[in-house]
Each structure stands twice: as C-alpha cells, then as structure tokens.
C-alpha cells in the first residue's frame, strides 16, 4: 500500500498547503499574467511590428508569460519548500512511517507542476480575451512542448534542492538561476528578436528551447524536434543529477 512513489493522502495534503501560501500563489499564478496585462496596456505593443514578421509584441509575450510561471514555481518556490522540509526534519519524520519521503518529493512536483500549468492556462486565456492573442494553432504540439518544459523546470528545481544544504542556499541558487532562466525565456528580449548568435546559444538552454518550441506551436507549426530534444535531454540530465545528489536529511 505504501511503497508507491505517489501517495494520495500526501498529495492532497500538499495541494491544500500550497493553497495556504498566498505569496507563492501570487508569484506563480498571478504575476506572469499581471505582467502580460501591463505590457498589453502599452498601446504600441498592440500594433503589428515589422521586425516580428508582422506579429505584435503582445503576441510574442504570451509564450514568455507562460514560461514565467514555470520558472517561478519550479526554480524559486519548489526548491525552497522542499529544502525547508528537509532542513526542519519533516522528511525525516516521514521516513519513520511506512510511506517513503519520496512521496513528499513527488507530491511537491505534482502540485507545483499543476500550479505552473494553471498559470500558463490563465495567461493564454487572458491573452485571448483581453488582447485578442490567438490561441495556439497547433494545440497538441503546444501541449507537448509545455509538458516537457514543466518536466525540465521541475527537474532543475530538484537539482537546486539537492545541492542546497539550507533554505537560504536554495533561495540564493534559485535567484542566481532565476534571472538567466528569465533571460533565456525571453522576458527582456523575445528569443525571435535576439541576434542570431545569441539565439543559437539560448536555444540550447531549457527555457530558450521551450520558448522557440512554444512559438512554433503558437504559429501553427509542429515544434521543432531539435527544441523538444533539447528539453528531453535537459530533463534526463537534471533528473539523473537530482537522483544522485539528493539527500533526505
């Protein structure tokens, strides 16, 4: 009954606990869409831009906002919570029961993954309703790219947690990774508008590849296998690292 990696009681509990964290909820669920709304209220961002093949800035920013929720949830929120659980002996307390503490790890991933997906959905819906941004024209490809990105983000979060002896360190590493991740996702400069060489490099990072894949699917193409491959490779690599370095106490 208990060897399972996923325990429904633990999952339910962690879901309930995340709902009690107004800070995390705001930054994961609302902040990305809020940013989209602010950008969308700049009139010139709603005009077609010749340098973007006739797309509007707001069109390009929807995938960026979608990635932002993932980055906040996977890199900032989850490693902090999980490291805290280890630091304060919560994982250890659970290891005295028939349920393995890995159930807490998997529950955290599922809960933060779900929150990040909800945040993505909100950004898509608000983009559509408020700014007339078309929904992804290749929805299945979009979903595949999004799912792979969630996995990569959670694996990255797990590595941060594995490498952090304390919550403070997890916070510091989280912030150090946070800004490059946002850059690669295109928060300051969408990947399509980056100079060629820079774009080539960024495409090999998880969030750069994700950004490109989402853009392609949004425009109606199947996301490039190269980009999806980069995401899978990162997920495998990071998961292996997390599994190797993770400590339960």
């Amino acid at each position, binding site marked *: *009954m*208990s*060897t399972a990696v996923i*325990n429904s*009681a*633990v999952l339910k*509990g962690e879901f*309930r*606990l995340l709902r*009690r*964290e107004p800070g995390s909820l705001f930054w994961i669920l609302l902040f990305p869409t809020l940013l989209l709304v602010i950008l969308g209220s700049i009139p010139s961002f709603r005009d077609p831009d010749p340098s973007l093949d006739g797309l509007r800035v707001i069109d390009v920013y929807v995938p960026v906002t979608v990635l932002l929720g993932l980055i906040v949830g996977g890199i900032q929120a989850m490693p902090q919570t999980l490291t805290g*659980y280890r630091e*304060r*002996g*919560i994982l*250890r*307390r659970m*290891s*005295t*029961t*028939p*349920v393995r503490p890995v159930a807490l790890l998997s529950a955290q991933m599922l809960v933060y993954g779900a929150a990040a997906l909800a945040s993505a959905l909100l950004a898509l819906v608000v983009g559509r309703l408020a700014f007339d941004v078309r929904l992804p024209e290749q929805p299945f490809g979009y979903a595949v790219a999004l799912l792979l990105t969630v996995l990569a983000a959670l694996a990255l979060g797990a590595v941060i947690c594995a490498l952090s002896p304390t919550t403070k360190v997890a916070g510091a590493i989280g912030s150090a990774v946070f800004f490059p991740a946002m850059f690669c996702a295109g928060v300051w400069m969408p990947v399509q508008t980056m100079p060629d060489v820079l774009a080539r490099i960024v495409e090999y990072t998880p969030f750069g590849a994700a950004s490109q894949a989402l853009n392609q699917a949004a425009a109606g193409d199947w996301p490039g296998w190269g980009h999806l491959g980069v995401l899978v490779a990162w997920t495998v690599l990071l998961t292996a690292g997390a599994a190797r370095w993770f400590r339960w106490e």
Partner: protein
Amino acid sequence: MRSPRARRDADAMPVIEVTDLRKSYAGRPVVDGVSFIVEEGEIFGVLGPNGAGKTTTVECVEGLRVPDAGRVRVTGLDPVTEDEATRRVLGAQLQESELQARLTVREALELYAAFYPRPLDWRPLAERLGLTAKLTTRFAKLSGGQKQRLFIALALIGNPRIVVLDELTTGLDPRARRDTWELIEDIRANGVTVLLVTHFMEEAQRLCDRIAVIDKGRIAALDTPAGLIRRSAGATVISFTPSAPLDDRDLNALPALASIEHKDGRITLSGTDETVNAVITLLARCHITAHQLRVTDATLDDAFLDLTKEAAA
C-alpha cells in the same frame, strides 16, 4: 489482543534485539558496543547523560541511522534492509522534528493515520492528549508542549506493536506528563512494547520494567529500577541530628559507608542496611540521642548519579 503475559511464552522471540551496536561520527565512537533485549509488552527505559548515545542507539532501532557494526532486529526484522515491514509495526517519536508549518493538528493526525494499514481512531487519541481544542490550529502556532503531544499522538496513530519514544515528556506540564504516563501504561496493557529514552527519573521509576543506563556509548548498568537502586553504593540513606558531637573517626569506620555529609549539625550517611544498624549501635554506645532520625531508600536519581559518576568529573 496481545497480552503482556505473552512475553513469558518460551518460544516468543524478543521484540527488540540489539547486539554489540557500534556507531562512530568522524572517527569518534558514539555508540560503542551496546547490547540489550526488549521483550514483548515490556517498557524498557534508556537513561544517560547528554551526549551518551541514547538517541543514536534508538534511531538505529528505528532504522533512521545505519549502524557501523552490530546487529539490530525488530520483531526479527532488520530495520535497514527491511524498512518497509519494520515501519509498519514501529511508531516513533523523535527527539527533534517538525511538521509543515501550515498543517493543522487534525490534518496531521488524518494524514499520518492514512499511512498505516490499521490506524487508531485519532479522535480519542487527541482527546487523551488534550489536543481536542487545538484541532484546527496550524503546527507553527502550537506551543512547545502541544507540539510534543501531537508527536506522541503521531507515534501511536499507526497502532504499532512497538513504540520508540525519545524524551517522551520533555516540555510537558506536570499534569500532561502524568496523563501521558497513564496513556503509555494503557497502551502497554494492550501488549505494546515501549522503548523509552528519558531524563526524568520519576518517569523511569514509574513506567519502566527495566532500565539501561548508557554512559559514553556503553551500557553502564541494566536492571530493574529497584535493582539499580539496590546496586548503587548508597542504597540506604540515614540522617539525624546528634544530641552531642560524634567522633569523625567512628563515623568513617562504619561498615559499607558510601558517603557522609555534615550540614548545620545534621549528619547524612548513605550506605546499606548494615550501615544503619552500625550507626544505631554506635549512638547507643556513646549515649547520644538522634533527633529527627530518618532512614530512607535512595532514589533512582541517586543511583543514576552514582552510576554515571565519572562522566561528570
């Protein structure tokens, strides 16, 4: 239900078996060859000074730490390699741990109950531990003693055959302490085996069938509480105020004398019954009257201090 008498069965295997357990940290032995056996339905106490290795020992029994050498068996299971099975029969209260800050008492009880195949009903348990009024309070908002009570509840919620309690009543008020002792006596009456680490002699004396005194990673003594007191050098204490001064040489010559103390004209001696008889004879011989003569048994406190003497030096 298991009855405490079951432990007298000839073929009953000991519930906990620890044989020559060793554990070092940074090359320093912390547990250095500890062996003991706990029978079914027994309350087995572990006493010892701070840093003696008590927590390390019981956490090896719980499977939380891996011994460097030696053998640990819990109902015949190896807590490290057969952790799943061990954890289903063993409930633990750790010396230090926490729960998720925003988890309420009730949610914690329900969550941990869901971890076990045949849990207890958490309601009566919460009632007995005085948690009923706190069911909707979040863990972070509980007082130290309330957290402790919750952890006692969580140790018992899985209806375990064995409970390991590391500093059971630390932080509890006197009434909660007594209520907890009654609770432990009740669960033992149902055949549950208890391994109890404590610093409270009154607790050990009241609850424990046998006690291991651990000092510097080794067992300094293992006996019943009465046995430990009897074994200690000053098992009997006699005190009186003599009507006239007594010769120190006479006092020092008393048989089996363990200690002697003068304070405000009152003399306190510890030793054995033989010492007491000799004192009475001495007083009679010198025609000295003993005012407020008191003869008492030494307490477990005295025995503990005597057994772990070098540690303090």
